[in-house]
């Protein structure tokens, strides 16, 4: 028997892990899109009781046991289900305790052991479900019902949670510890389970529920306040729309002005400086120092750093000299052409009584000749007069140049 259950359980869990994609899809979407998956797989899952079809013609859904398993381990906030059926749990505890005591009484120890382990399981699952219910409530409070958007929905969620808390509290009243302790009698194991464990969890849950209740009341107060404010704002605009000429009576003319509309205007003006106070001397000196510094920079800017006109005559003058030199060279060339005779540069310089430095003049003539294009150069012949350097070989000193036509 045990072997069989073990095998079936392993098979079931394997099916869960093999089709985990599909199951999570259904968990998130709510229903299964049958066209997307292999019909064989779906049939298999149906047989294992993981999926079920609530009515014919409706889509497949997850079994609630699988769903709550996932919700519990994922701490999913959509989980709003609270198991408050404590009465039946307590009744089954009672029954099991009686079975156990009877088996003990008749000396059937192996049987009694299995009853005890059943009982332990039940007690722990009861405490776990209580703790879980409180945790679910707290998680909803902690994010202020963040999973719904509007304030109205939050108020409804809050009301649901409050209903669940009071339901849980009335259920908790069914714990009769006197009866449980009577049932446990002098048996150590039973006493531990039925009295110690349950009482511990009971007092913890009661304490936490009272905190939950207080927080819920506080939250609903805040939500109502929010809703009230929004309605106040909207109502005011509506009223203004319907009666555009509306203006409140001037409450300041009432015999007793409401405190809200009694605001004294600003009274204080900046204080003046007292130059006779010794303790302020440093600050004042600092201030005065600032004034001086400000003044100095300003005067500098005005006098010395003012923009000036740039003198450009000097430059054009220099250019003019060069131009004169160039014009003279051109005139020299023209005279050579006009006369058709050879003429040295220095002779021309003397004839015309030019006031340039002779060396500069010769340089300019040579430069003028070389500045001509190759074709024009062909019309002229430029001879140099001079002598070899007396000491150094290969150096030729030009004393004059002679220009003629070819």
């Amino acid at each position, binding site marked *: 028997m045990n072997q069989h259950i073990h095998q079936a359980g392993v098979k079931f869990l394997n099916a869960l892990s093999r089709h985990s994609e599909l199951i999570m899809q259904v968990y998130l979407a709510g229903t299964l899109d049958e066209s997307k998956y292999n019909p064989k797989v779906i049939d298999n899952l149906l047989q294992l009781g993981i999926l079920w079809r609530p009515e014919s013609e409706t889509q497949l859904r997850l079994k609630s046991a699988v769903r709550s398993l996932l919700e519990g381990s994922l701490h999913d906030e959509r989980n709003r289900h609270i198991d408050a059926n404590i009465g039946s749990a307590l009744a089954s505890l009672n029954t099991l305790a009686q079975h156990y005591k009877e088996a003990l009484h008749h000396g059937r120890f192996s049987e009694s052991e299995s009853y005890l382990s059943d009982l332990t399981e039940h007690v722990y699952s009861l405490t776990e479900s209580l703790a879980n219910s409180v945790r679910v409530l707290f998680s909803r409070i902690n994010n202020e019902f963040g999973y719904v958007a509007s304030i109205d929905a939050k108020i409804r969620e809050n009301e649901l949670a409050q209903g669940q808390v009071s339901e849980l509290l009335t259920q908790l009243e069914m714990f009769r510890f006197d009866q449980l302790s009577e049932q446990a009698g002098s048996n150590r194991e039973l006493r531990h389970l039925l009295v110690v464990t349950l009482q511990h969890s009971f007092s913890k849950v009661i304490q936490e529920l009272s905190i939950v209740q207080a927080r819920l009341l506080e939250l609903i107060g805040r939500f109502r306040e929010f809703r009230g404010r929004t309605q*106040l704002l909207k*109502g005011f605009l*509506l009223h203004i729309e319907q009666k555009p000429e509306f203006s*409140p009576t*001037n409450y*300041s003319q009432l015999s007793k002005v409401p405190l809200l*509309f009694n*605001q*004294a*205007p600003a009274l204080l003006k900046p204080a003046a400086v007292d130059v006779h106070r010794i303790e302020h001397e440093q600050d004042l000196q600092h201030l005065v120092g600032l004034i001086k510094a400000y003044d100095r920079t300003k005067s500098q800017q005005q006098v010395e750093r003012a923009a000036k006109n740039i003198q450009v005559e000097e430059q054009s003058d220099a250019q003019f000299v060069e131009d004169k030199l160039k014009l003279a060279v051109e005139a020299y060339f023209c005279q050579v052409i006009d006369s058709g005779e050879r003429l040295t540069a220095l002779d021309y310089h003397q004839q015309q009584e030019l006031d340039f430095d002779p060396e500069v003049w010769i340089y300019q003539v040579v430069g003028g000749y070389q500045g001509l294009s190759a074709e024009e150069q062909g019309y002229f012949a430029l001879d140099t007069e001079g002598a070899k350097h007396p000491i150094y070989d290969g150096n030729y000193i030009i004393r004059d140049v002679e220009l003629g036509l070819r």
Partner: protein
Amino acid sequence: MITEQGRILELLLSGAFICQISDEDAWRYLKTAASSDKIENQLNVLNRTLASAADGDVFFAAYQSLYDDERKQLGSQFQDISSNLVPLVEWLLLVQQANGTDVPVTQGSAIRLNELQTTIEDTPAFAEQLEKISRYRMFGSTSTQLDGQLKQVFKRLTELGYLLKPNSEKQIFIATGKIEYLYDVLKFIDETEALSLTEQAENAALQGSLL
């Protein structure tokens, strides 16, 4: 060296609203009865009294007794308050709707300007609404650009003390207790003029859902 008491007195006399957001130290100081009594005594010398709104969330200085001058002063102040109501309410609703939550702006709400701007830019209805709001005299924007309008609105609200910009380099604003004061004003008008604004809004929502 100015004492805490003197600092708070100065704040109050310069017309500031003191709340947990704008100046937590001062707010806590005023929350304790012994120290607020001291402030009260000093305010009384100047015909002022310590006033609070929104269940003690905000403190400000009020006149102790009213004569003609004070009444005139309060009268013009009231004109300002009531003419600013519509722009402020429209702005509050715009922020609330653009945020996509039903949670109204309250003291301590953080508003991220960049996020708000993105949402408004993406929704023409919000952009239109913003343009309308920014044109009110209270905000006085002349910009045709959404960016400029939004900045101007937030700048004015910060100047008027409704918002606070804790870090000058980040475009994050925090609503101060003056917002709570605004709600108080609305509630007061609602009750005094018997407008039953909440019912009006509820009916409108009901009709909306019927349609």
